[in-house]
């Protein structure tokens, strides 16, 4: 009896998981569908949308009006730059907290996390004023620094969790063999934590790529990334659904492809140390 129910239950679980996955993926699928429709067809009822003709016009119109590659390169530089700058700060910080914890380590970690609880708009004006004074408005370096600071708590927390899984004795052995602190972190700790570091990089690149509040508020034209590219097709007066969808597909495609190929790594990294 048990044998008979197991496959049925498995099929049911698979069906539920498949349905949930489809529901979650549906908005993206619908954006892709609309991006290949004309503006007039894109606003019709769903069944009429599917049965109407397909066209690449929206992609052509978007490319003609906006410089996609300028925005794309800005997104690449800002997301990679902020992630690697974040790692430079976070690896030593996480090392210290994981291997030489002090009395306040736990509190410091919680305090760092608490900065994520503040609504960003609450600090918009002070940060805007700082950007004006340092001449950082509409610069990529300014965004790299801000996004690094915003994602830093997550980077440190993730690395801290991975580092704690690594036995301290191994680092101790390296020290006894005469490794300096730099060598210990670079040649012993980092290679062992590589899966964790890789998934931290992936997650932070995705977070930085999708960040819309700061990238919209601190840029104008020169440093504007793909979030600004999408925003330029949104309008409460006028029909731009097809073009907005095409712009969205062009903006999310690179990160979607990257996520697709690295999903194994991402899942492995995120569940690293989950089972003890």
């Amino acid at each position, binding site marked *: 009896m048990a044998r008979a129910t197991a496959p049925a239950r498995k099929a049911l679980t698979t069906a539920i998981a498949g349905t949930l996955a489809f529901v979650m993926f549906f908005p993206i699928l619908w954006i892709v569908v609309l991006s290949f429709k004309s*503006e*007039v067809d894109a*606003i*019709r009822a769903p069944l009429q949308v599917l049965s109407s003709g397909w066209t690449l016009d929206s992609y052509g119109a978007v490319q003609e*009006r906006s410089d996609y590659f300028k925005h794309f390169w800005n997104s690449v530089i800002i997301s990679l730059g902020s992630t690697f700058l974040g790692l430079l700060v976070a690896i030593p910080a996480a090392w210290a907290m994981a291997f030489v914890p002090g009395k306040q380590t736990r509190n410091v970690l919680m305090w760092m996390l608490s900065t994520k609880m503040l609504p960003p708009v609450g600090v*918009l*004006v002070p940060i*805007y*004023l700082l*950007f*004006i004074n340092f001449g950082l*408005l*509409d610069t990529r370096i300014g965004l790299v620094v801000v996004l690094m600071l915003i994602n830093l708590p997550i980077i440190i927390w993730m690395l801290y969790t991975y580092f704690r899984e690594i036995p301290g004795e191994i680092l101790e052995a390296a020290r006894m063999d005469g490794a300096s602190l730099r060598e210990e972190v670079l040649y012993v700790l980092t290679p062992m934590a590589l899966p964790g570091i890789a998934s931290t990089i992936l997650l932070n690149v995705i977070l930085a790529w999708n960040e819309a509040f700061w990238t*919209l*508020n601190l840029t*104008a*034209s*020169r440093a*504007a990334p793909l979030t*600004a590219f999408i*925003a*330029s*097709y*949104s*309008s*409460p*007066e*006028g*029909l*731009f659904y097809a073009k907005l969808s095409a712009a969205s597909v062009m903006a999310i495609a690179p990160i979607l492809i990257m996520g697709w190929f690295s999903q194994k790594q991402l899942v492995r990294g995120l569940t690293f140390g989950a089972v003890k």
Partner: protein
Amino acid sequence: MRLRNATVAATAIALVTGGSAVAEDLTIATVNNSDMIIMQKLSPQWEEATGHTLNWVVLEENVLRQRVTTDIATKGGSFDIVTIGAYEAPIWGKQGWLNALDDLGDAYDYADIFEPVRNGLSADGTLYAVPFYAESSFTFYRTDLFEKAGLEKPAEQITYDQFAEMVAQLHDPENGVYGTCQRGKAGWGENMAFVGPMVNAFGGRWFDMEWNPTIDSPEWKAAITYYVDLMNNYGPPGASSNGHNENRALFADGKCATWVDATSAAGYIFNPNESSVADKTDFFQAPKQVTDKGTGWFWAWALAVPSSSTKVDAAKEFLAWATSKDYVTLVGESEGWVAAPPGTRKSTYENAAYVEAAPFAKTVETSILAANPADPTKDPVPYTGIQFVAIPEFQGIGNYVGQQIAAALAGQQSVDQALANSQTFAVREMTKAGYIK
């Protein structure tokens, strides 16, 4: 010799255009709509003629408003030209955030701009933004459905009661046609743009002469009850999530018999490539009720130069070009006359080519000239603005009231509850801002 000739020619051009001698790199922030896209498309001609370059920042209206406000208030100087509406122009002008634009030269022909438009963009008699296009509101209706129901186009402005009777006869949901489509999506620029003039028509007002909110008055109750009943009985399902765009799509797809909305949407509805009802649509004035004051709204998208810009001369040169009579002609000739920026200049409406291409031209002109933001209500008010109140606090109050009315429309609360909540909120905000002692 050649060098001397070239120098003389360049000097002459600079003197004639009154332009800045140095080629400047200007950043312009604007909204995403058809007229602005045309401006962006044609602007290389201006860049070529003047040597200046333009960097475009195109954002959704609300994002743009927040982005530009932050930048101007902190003197960030990110933008040299900004696109603002009739709501911001007088407020920001008064606050010293914008450069005065009274000096664009005789050739600009200020007298050619419609007076209500000029007044709507001025504060204390000074013009702070120049109009790119302007709109009022009127009623779009389907001529074929009117004919089928034995109705005739009203010769004079009808009342909302007559409008409801008309809509009842046209309502045919079995055949996919709803009697009326009106804005229901919450927001001061969405549902309140329709509700505001309707409240005016019912004799209501936002504030009395002492700035006390009057949202719990019988006039407001009559207007909102009418609105909720009208939409529940004859509107499309889910009306509380329909804004301008959704209704525009529904009307263009033949799903609505009537629609009271922006005159600027006429170009779209009358374009057969984008609308399936282009040859069976006509229009009449937005309805009145106990008064005909403030029954059609007034809105303009305009260009302004923030006081934080360091390239004021070059920015003004662009403004003088993009809002000139010549620009209207340029759009008419290159994009088709129906696409010419409407509602700003008398000369556009005197142009036979435009009047022929745009059958709605005369009605739009009448609606805009009839709109008087300085006298929008039956009883006197201390504010200007028809569908909005030109004070900084209105944005928050308008959004809140919009949410309450949308909730009443969706059946989540009663009209009384919505108005009571709105009144409490408005009183609190106005007290906090110091209007009520």
